[in-house]
């Protein structure tokens, strides 16, 4: 066989290997993003599961907060609908976070509720879930950043372009959420 042909073949094999390596790397990064979003979804669901109990125990003591409680229940119902897009999920999640926070602030006016054991337990569980959600968001942001870097650097960008991979948005974590003990502090100030 002609040696030039051999060399050409060798180059081709190396190029193919590099291509496969980059392709796999990009796929891995994309899967990590999906995986991280899944991890966050699990925590969000845990929070949705807590809401009915929370609403029930608040209702018993805080009769004047009906409107707020109804709003939370409605938001939860919409969040549990199937076929929500990622952006819809994120928007609903933000609204629920806000509503729960306002509820916890208004709870301050009901000392009996604050002393209720069941409520204290729920509050702990909620803090736990909030911390887990916050951690999951940060993981999501880390892998999305990694993914975005991966698809934008040359020569990965060529393959990413061919695969139709687009830049993904990271979560904007609000200042209040950076300090994930925020919720508790409202209680501790009593």
């Amino acid at each position, binding site marked *: 066989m002609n040696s030039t042909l051999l060399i050409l073949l060798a180059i081709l094999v190396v190029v193919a290997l590099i291509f496969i390596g980059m392709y796999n790397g990009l796929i891995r990064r994309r899967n990590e993003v999906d995986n991280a979003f899944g991890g966050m979804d699990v925590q969000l669901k845990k929070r949705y599961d807590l809401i009915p109990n929370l609403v029930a125990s608040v209702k018993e003591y805080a009769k004047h907060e009906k409107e707020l409680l109804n709003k939370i229940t409605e938001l939860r119902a919409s969040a549990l609908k199937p076929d929500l897009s990622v952006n819809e999920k994120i928007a609903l999640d933000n609204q629920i976070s806000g509503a729960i926070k306002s509820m916890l602030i208004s709870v301050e006016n009901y000392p009996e509720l604050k002393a209720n054991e069941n409520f204290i337990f729920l509050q702990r569980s909620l803090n736990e879930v909030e911390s887990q959600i916050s951690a999951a968001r940060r993981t999501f942001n880390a892998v999305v950043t990694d993914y975005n870097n991966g698809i934008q650097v040359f020569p990965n960008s060529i393959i990413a372009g061919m695969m139709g991979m687009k830049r993904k948005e990271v979560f904007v974590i609000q200042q209040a959420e950076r300090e994930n*003990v925020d919720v508790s502090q409202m209680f501790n100030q009593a």
Partner: protein
Amino acid sequence: MMSSVNLKEIYRSKLSPALLSLESQRKDVVKRILLSVAILLLGIVAFVVGQQSEYGFIPGVLIVIGAFVSFGFAFSKYNSYKQAFKNKVVRKVIESIDPDWNYHPEACISENEYVESGLFQRHWDRYNGDDLISGVIDKTDFRLSELHTQYKTVSVDSKGRRSEHWHTIFKGLFAHADFNKEIRGETFVLPDIAERMFGKWGQKLQKFSPRGELVKLENIEFEKYFVVYSHDQNEARYILTPKIMEAIVHIRQQFDTEIYLSFVGTRVYVAMSFSQDLFEPRLFRSGVRYSDIEQMYYQFNTISVIVNEMNLNTRIWTKE
């Protein structure tokens, strides 16, 4: 934490009289050592001079033996001086931080606890430590001691002579405390030596570790000092919240030494390197110095700094 004014007051009223009473004991030890050295020198001289006659070396040998006996005596005196120092001074310093803390001068963090932490994976050949303190700060129980672990290598030179070398694995303060969140996996926060030495390439090297996946965190300063490995990316971030990362950076800067942390089971383990021996009495200079006591106080208080900075008493999550 007690203010320095209060510590000065305690020093003046309790510690300085205790230190003064120990001074005579210290001087006695020093005298014994100097005497032993003098006897040894005399023995050597007698031995060299005695070489001229057949049995002339005998007095020299006898005097050298006497010197060793004297050294042994000095050593036992030193031990009782050390014991008195620990009981009269170190114990008082600890009591001044919290009278309910327990102090065991001879004990240390157990080998099991050391292994449990997973911080140092190399097996040791020598395991020493002392000055164990245990207690509770509000809701957080802890144990802390000085620790020194070493491993041995043996080399053989061209003439076939064997020599042993001892290498330090860890030397410093080793502590662990109850962690306020539930942990399922293991998370390690270690000094980022690879990245400091090799920069970006170091980061590539870091990817390979038996301790779990590399976790990249968003606090740049924290990342400069530490590298994080965990079996669960989410759990690592659940433990290392932005506030906890800041706290760890703060502790690192405050003590200006290498710090190793692990979060395993229900505990947070913290190992801080110190090259000098801690909480030991001075021998060749006066032991009556406020600065020594102050330093000791801050070193013992490390545990309070860790508990407070890391907010371990905040119990708002599912773990009580």
